[in-house]
């Protein structure tokens, strides 16, 4: 079981990856000449792309047909193991093949005129990633046909928080963006949040406490009728004898709503499903384990909605982490100190004496 800090870090890094991806999409979608969002963009992030030998699902796939297309993979922490790195390399080569396919050939028409692949990684990993890929290139194991670039990203806590993007290796299309990213781009976090619906999930599996928090804080309250909150809450609780607000919903329904409202599907409703059904199902199972939900017939669950102590995220982190609260003293185990201790049996008492009723204390005589 991971510690609370580890879980929190995982969420943070997941959310940062979402921010980096959306910032890069935001940047690539911006039309420099018109000073507005480019029209006619095709968002295919997380969608299946065929490369010849099979299919892949790149985290980022943005096309401006018939001009350009960009494919990308977000690997914020790159990988420390060689096997992991080799896997990333192979994946990027597959993306390269997809990019080539986008350009068309004898059999199929071209989707775009130029296409490139991007590895999106954290600023702290950019040199390692570049060194590794360079070595692989020299060794002949990594030779992309289409332009390839590493884009490094970081959240910069200046006075205002920015998402900083810079191209640190290779080249990118379209050319104007290649140049812009070479000179670094800073997207204000606030700007990113205001101009986009909240994308909380991308193609990769979200950390469980994060999925639960979005479910509990954002989706579920909107499904409970407004007048069941507040003053009527107590009355309802008495009616239901449950002590909380109730809502019935199926896993499929919850999953569909999470995807439609909080995933990359906000950009394109035809994108594949993330979070995946099994993840949402696991989340519901956890709620059942913690007594917050009840399994009903079929795929339906009854959820007892209530305010969780210290906020939902804190509650879920506590439940899912290895750090436990200090065990509280159980009153049952500790007997109260008797007010009138029973006589110690080890002391010899004259049976005759003890049989007599206890003498009442006499007031001490004055003389």
């Amino acid at each position, binding site marked *: 079981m991971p510690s609370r800090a580890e879980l929190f870090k995982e969420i943070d890094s997941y959310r940062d990856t979402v921010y980096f991806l959306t910032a890069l999409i935001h940047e690539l979608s911006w039309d420099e000449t018109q000073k507005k*969002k480019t029209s006619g963009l095709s968002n295919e992030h997380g969608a299946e792309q065929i490369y010849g030998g099979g299919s892949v699902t790149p985290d980022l796939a943005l096309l401006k047909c018939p001009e350009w297309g960009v494919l990308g993979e977000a690997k914020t922490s790159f990988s420390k193991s060689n096997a992991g790195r080799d896997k990333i390399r192979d994946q990027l080569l597959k993306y390269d093949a997809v990019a080539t396919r986008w350009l068309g050939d004898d059999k199929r028409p071209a989707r775009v005129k130029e296409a490139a692949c991007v590895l999106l990684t954290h600023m702290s990993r950019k040199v390692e990633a570049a060194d590794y890929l360079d070595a692989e290139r020299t060794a002949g194991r990594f030779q992309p046909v289409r332009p390839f670039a590493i884009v490094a990203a970081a959240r910069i806590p200046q006075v205002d*928080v920015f998402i900083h993007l810079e191209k640190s290796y290779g080249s990118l299309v379209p050319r104007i963006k290649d140049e812009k990213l070479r000179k670094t781009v800073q997207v204000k976090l606030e700007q990113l*949040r205001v101009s986009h*619906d*909240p994308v909380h999930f991308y193609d990769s599996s979200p950390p469980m406490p994060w999925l639960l928090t979005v479910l509990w*804080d954002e989706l579920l309250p909107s499904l409970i009728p407004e007048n069941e*909150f507040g*003053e009527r809450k107590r009355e309802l609780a008495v009616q239901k004898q449950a002590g909380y607000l109730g809502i019935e919903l199926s896993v499929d329904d919850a999953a569909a709503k999470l995807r439609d*409202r909080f995933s990359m599907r906000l950009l394109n409703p035809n994108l594949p499903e993330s979070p995946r059904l099994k993840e949402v199902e696991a989340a519901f199972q956890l709620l059942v384990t913690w007594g917050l939900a009840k399994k009903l017939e079929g795929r339906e669950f009854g959820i007892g909605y209530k305010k969780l102590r210290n906020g939902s995220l804190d509650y879920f982190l506590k439940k899912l982490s290895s750090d436990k609260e200090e065990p509280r003293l159980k009153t049952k185990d500790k007997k109260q100190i008797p007010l009138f201790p029973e006589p110690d049996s080890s002391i010899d008492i004259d049976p005759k004496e003890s049989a007599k009723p206890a003498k009442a204390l006499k007031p001490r005589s004055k003389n």
Partner: protein
Amino acid sequence: MKPSLAVSIADSWLDARRSIAEIVETLPVEPLPQKLLAHFTVINYRTEIAPLFDHFKRPWGAVTERQRSEKGVLYNLEFEGVDDKRRSMPMRLWLLPEATVAVLITVCSNRDWRQGVKRLLDALYPKVYSPFLSQVALRTLFDGMGSALKPHLSMRLTRVSSVRRLLQTRSRKRFESEVTWTDIDVKSAFEAALEEKSFFKNLAFEVCEPDERADVVRSEGTAGVASRDAHFAVNKNVRWLYRSAVAPLLDEARDRSVFLRGRGRADSPRPDGVRAIAARFTGNFRVTTEELPQLTAILRRYPDASVSILHANPYLDASVVDMRDGSSIELLLASENQMLLLPGLRATESALNRICRFLYEQVGEAHFADARS
């Protein structure tokens, strides 16, 4: 039982056979007897308001119909006073046309207003909410009231209940509050508050005229109270109060409701982003990273809500679920001088008003505006 003086005055004044327009046009100038005040309480509502009144019944009180005509309804608010005795108060509800703003007009003492009207409004939340006034808005209203007086008259504050935020100190308390019984002219009171970075909650005022005998002022006889929660009352010159304070307040309330309405993502799906509100800190107020722990502690104590801190350093991201109506609002502080309120799927006017009020009171002087996308 003989009706009390307040009831008989209100009965004749707020008669259901008179339309609101007639009432407003013929507001009395002469003083009300005893400690009675004519109260105007401005509220915003989100659902049909009349049915809420028709069915209102609580252990401490109820609303009944006293008189009805084609021109309007005179309600009767029954409530339990501080002395545990049942009291009743005639009340007229004025619904503004083409807006979700209403005014409750009553004649009673200030204490009865708190025991009756205030409780009624609290009980009707979140269907009804009071549009809170910022210190700047309150000052503008007071300036208007002052300038609407005859030139030789002036307004003075006799009781000031003020609050000073303590975010930037190491205090364990969130704010410092005090009530001062004083006699100070309005302008200097507001300036002193600006200097001290405090804001007013309630005020009692008096209209004064110069005394011929010496270089002092004496009361002209008009006295009243005002609160940040859009409530004004006066004992004399009701017409003056209505024209100079209540009428502009109605515009403010109307704008507030338009500003807060329809921000939930489920109400208005927009492809180009969320309808976020930016709380722009005014003056020199800034939240620095060192103050974030203090700020998180304040947010965690937001009443009737579940607050999860999603990120606390170096920027603040908190998810707030309002447990009074199930609204979710995300707070993002990613720059020094403003905080973003990002509405979730459900974000009602009342919940947004409540959190804006809370942030204004406990975090810092701010101006609320549409966040630019």
